[in-house]
């Protein structure tokens, strides 16, 4: 009951935020006109059309792809975070924290710098997926012992992986031309400024597929919380669940990273807040984290591009400023609960 209410509430909030975000910017368009423009495109003659000069253009060429990309990216990040915590059995696991995002970013940056085009519009996301998958697998294998991941090992592995990825990214920057350099730098900070319908066409389907498939594993992820042995004795094919989970995490993370760069902590903060409201059951947690992540990122992007006149704050910087201290608090709490770690 509580879960259904939360999901309904988050959906409502997401829709409102999208209308608000699409209407805000240098050309202000009231939400009713945004809605009217949308309905007219869908063939429903209801609501007012944008009255501002270039309003219709601003909406359909610039704002809508950006808002949709923000929502898709946020959903991918939120869902990937919740999924990763479930698969690792560790509430501190998050693609950004343990280096999967930067691993995927190396793949994406390589495509930009080296000018690879093998898969057309899907090249960036394709190589990001390959690198993200390899990184997730590496972290998973390295940080496990006796069927679970220890917090300390996980975080230390994350530091090592992040160090290597950052070095590789640095190398790619060193190799790149001035134009590519600027593109990569702004992308590295995390930004949705380059949003186009083309990027939406890649990210949105991947996110939707990833989230839907992930929700199908909800029941098994609940059982995995009991530990691998007990989950196995309740009929879960643990090896298979684990592998599918890692593929999904890599898929969602690469979808999120490919066009918007590294945006950390969304996958950590959102699932944690959801758990505080409805408990840890994955049947609510996964969809609610996707919705919550989408809403959060649409709101964060709105702040990032409207807080300063004629300038944009990097989105990734904004989420890290808020997410970093939250992570610190979570870390201290976990430490206090487990009685400290050496």
């Amino acid at each position, binding site marked *: 009951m509580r879960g259904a209410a939360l999901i309904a509430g988050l959906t409502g909030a997401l829709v409102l935020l999208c209308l608000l975000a699409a209407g805000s910017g240098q050309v202000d368009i009231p939400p009713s006109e945004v809605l009217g423009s949308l309905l007219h495109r869908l063939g429903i003659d209801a609501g007012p059309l944008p009255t501002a000069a270039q309003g219709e253009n601003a909406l359909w060429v610039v704002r809508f792809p950006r808002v949709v990309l923000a929502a898709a990216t946020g959903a991918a990040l939120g869902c990937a975070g919740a999924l990763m915590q*479930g698969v690792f*059995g*560790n*509430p501190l696991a998050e693609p950004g924290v343990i280096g999967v995002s930067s691993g995927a970013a190396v793949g994406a940056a390589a495509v930009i710098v080296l000018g690879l085009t093998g898969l057309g519009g899907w090249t960036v996301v394709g190589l990001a997926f390959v690198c993200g998958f390899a990184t997730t697998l590496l972290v998973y294998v390295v940080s496990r012992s006796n069927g*679970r991941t220890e917090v300390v090992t996980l975080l230390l592995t994350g530091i090592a992986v992040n160090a290597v990825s950052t070095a590789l990214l640095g190398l790619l920057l060193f190799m790149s031309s001035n134009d590519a350099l600027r593109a990569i730098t702004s992308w590295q900070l995390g930004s949705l400024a380059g949003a186009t319908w083309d990027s939406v066409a890649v990210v949105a389907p991947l996110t939707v597929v990833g989230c839907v498939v992930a929700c199908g594993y909800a*029941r098994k992820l*609940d*059982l*995995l*919380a*009991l*530990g691998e*042995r*007990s989950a*196995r*004795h*309740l*009929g*879960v*094919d643990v090896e298979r669940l684990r592998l599918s989970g890692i593929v999904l995490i890599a898929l969602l993370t690469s979808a999120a990273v490919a066009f918007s760069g590294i945006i950390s902590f969304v996958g950590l903060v959102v699932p944690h807040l959801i*758990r505080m409201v409805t*408990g*840890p*059951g994955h049947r609510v947690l996964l969809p609610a984290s996707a919705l919550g992540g989408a809403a959060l990122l649409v709101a964060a992007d709105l702040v990032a591009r409207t807080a300063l006149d004629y300038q944009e704050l990097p989105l990734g910087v904004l989420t890290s400023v808020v997410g970093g201290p939250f992570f610190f608090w979570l870390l201290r709490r976990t430490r206090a*609960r487990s009685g400290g770690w050496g």
Partner: protein
Amino acid sequence: MNPLRRRPASQPGAEVELKVRGLSVRRGKRTVVDGVDLDVRPGEVLTLVGPNGAGKSTLLAAVCGDLESEGEILLDGRPAASWNPVELAMRRAFLTQSHTLAFSFEVEEVVRMGRAPWAGTSREDEDDEAVAQAMRDTDVLGFAERAFPSLSGGEQARVALARVLAQRTPVVLLDEPTAALDIRHQELVFTVARARAAEGRAVVAVVHDLGLAAAHSDRVAVLADGRLAACGRPEDVLTAPLLSEVYSHPIEVVPHPRDGRPLILPLR
């Protein structure tokens, strides 16, 4: 689809046998369990006893497939490895020694996880009743809505046991179900075990307390150095000479003045 998948573990109350033949487990060069033969029969409580490091938990874990082993394990007439995870979970339940939980699920949610193997089968209808009975039997109703990690060790152990009981399998394997429990709940656990055996299930439990083993088992298996030292009725197996040798400590066995069950005491 594989026709064996979702093949139910027989009807409620049907009997399933577990046979172990020549089971050995090696860890590095050491042989921890050495050629153990064991029959687990429907309708009986079988306890595994033995000194620390005798291989009791290892034996149980190997029987469950958690550890690599040599030898034969037959469950419901077929090699255990030939069943898929769901089919196995319909036939046998296993209570591990440690009860960790990654997220703070509530007690009732944890117990309900025991019903997972039956999802999508006709026995899904029993879910509510099985959960309620398991929680009643293990005396955890008083904190049904509390978060599992906030419970004491003994309370967590009982919740974990409730989850295993809710699974309602014909074979129930318990690794030290009484380790963290007070005397009342120790007795409660074995009362429940006896009741489940009376329904035709086979219950196997590792215990340290020889008094509990003597009082509640139909058969006792004594393990020493990875080998089966003896297996049979408590009054036949739990004798002073055997126990003194196995535990390397003088032990006396006297009949209880009221019911004649063996009382086992260290010589002090």
